[in-house]
């Protein structure tokens, strides 16, 4: 299997590539519409500012190819910002428009908790999910973010297969048709992160 990583310059692209290598999966970085159009399996890694990701999609004319690919039904995995980008918009850059695959806006986590939400946290599993096969509510994953998709701002938590909590409940993992996305970083989450990536790839094969 060949996996395409959308490379818009985010810091975690090499980490995701190394995590896939450890699973004996080769991946290619893609940064042009033609490369995206050729993708069989697409991963959108992302870390940092929401605006950097959305602007990169538009400036490189990648928005349409990415949407067409996802809508064509190929296996897709969004990581961190790659989850947030699936919604209509984000409070981190309200003037920009997201990929609008799911309704609602991404918002900042409450200041009653320390921000960024940084470190290892657990998941509250919502329902059966091939993506989370073998993963339990006692397992920890690495998060590093201040914004999140919360049930109150996204109207519906229906695509969510796992929630997590930091000052407020938020969507930690999505599995909806061919679209998978996680707010945490599987590439930085040790053996269980590798397990999640393997689950995604198994379903994609």
């Amino acid at each position, binding site marked *: 299997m060949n996996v395409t990583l959308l490379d818009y310059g985010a*810091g*975690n692209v*090499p*980490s995701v590539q*190394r*995590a896939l290598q*450890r699973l004996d999966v080769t991946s290619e970085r893609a940064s042009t519409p033609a490369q995206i159009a050729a993708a069989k399996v697409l991963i959108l890694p992302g*870390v*940092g*500012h929401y605006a950097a990701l959305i602007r990169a999609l538009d400036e490189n004319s990648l928005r349409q190819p990415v949407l067409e690919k996802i809508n064509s039904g190929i296996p897709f995995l969004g990581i961190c910002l790659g989850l947030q980008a699936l919604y209509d918009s984000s409070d981190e850059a309200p003037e920009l428009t997201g990929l609008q695959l799911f309704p609602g806006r991404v918002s900042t986590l409450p*200041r009653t908790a*320390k*921000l*960024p*939400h*940084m*470190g*290892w*946290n*657990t998941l509250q599993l919502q329902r059966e999910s091939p993506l989370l096969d073998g993963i339990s*509510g006692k397992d*920890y994953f*690495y998060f*590093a*973010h*201040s914004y999140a998709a919360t049930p109150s701002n996204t109207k519906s938590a229906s695509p969510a297969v796992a929630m997590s*909590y*930091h000052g407020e409940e938020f969507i930690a993992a999505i599995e909806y048709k061919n679209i998978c996305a996680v707010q945490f*970083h599987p*590439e*930085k*989450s*040790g*053996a269980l*992160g*590798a397990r999640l990536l393997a689950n995604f790839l198994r379903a994609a094969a």
Partner: protein
Amino acid sequence: MSLAHRIIPCLDTDGARVVKGVNFVGLRDAGDPAELAARYNAEGADELVVLDIAAARDRRPTFLETIRRVAAELAIPLTAGGGIRSLEDARSVIRAGADKVTVNTAAVERPELLSELSAEFGAQAVVIAIDAKFKTDHWDVMVRGGRESAAMNALDWAQRAVENGAGEILVTSVDRDGTQSGFDIPLTSAIATAVNVPVIASGGAKLPQHFAEVFQRGQADAALAASIFHDSIQSIRELKQFLAEQQIEVRYPC
């Protein structure tokens, strides 16, 4: 359940090799950074920090190669720093495989560096390292490897650094560093109370009880240590088991 308290081994390097010393002086060799990184990754470290404590300009390519070698061994986050003075320095460290950069002296001299880094990489990737030393009635910020006073109150600096875009604070007690007499609890607690970002405590760790104290009374989110892990005085797995038994939330089993 909530966030687990993190255990973070630190590799102080001369660019290429892990070194160690007491109170920032008298360095000696403590091993290969990539080998130690692989060991800590397997033992359940929650994160790793690699520092270039020499930070000599001509050794920079060597340090970037060290980061690449260390990152290749890790399935956990990596923070790198030492001698980062500009956005370009930070970019090269992140491109080499670090998830976060830590800055110290350069941010004291030019706090806007923090906002530049935060705008480029996000606050979650910017760690302000503060070396603090007790002086009469407050903690003084020390720079240049803990040797010089910056004549700033560490608590004020912590708040200002966060306003400027730092997303995490690594606070090292210069008084405790290398003494193995326990973390500086009043310092850590004062910093954790002063800001609303995660705080990593550093300096003085030896016993498992020291870690329990800094998480409970010191309100630290993470604790960092170097030589006790390198010399196998303390195994990370046993340390986490001890903390779990004390009802302190940690990622265990890991």
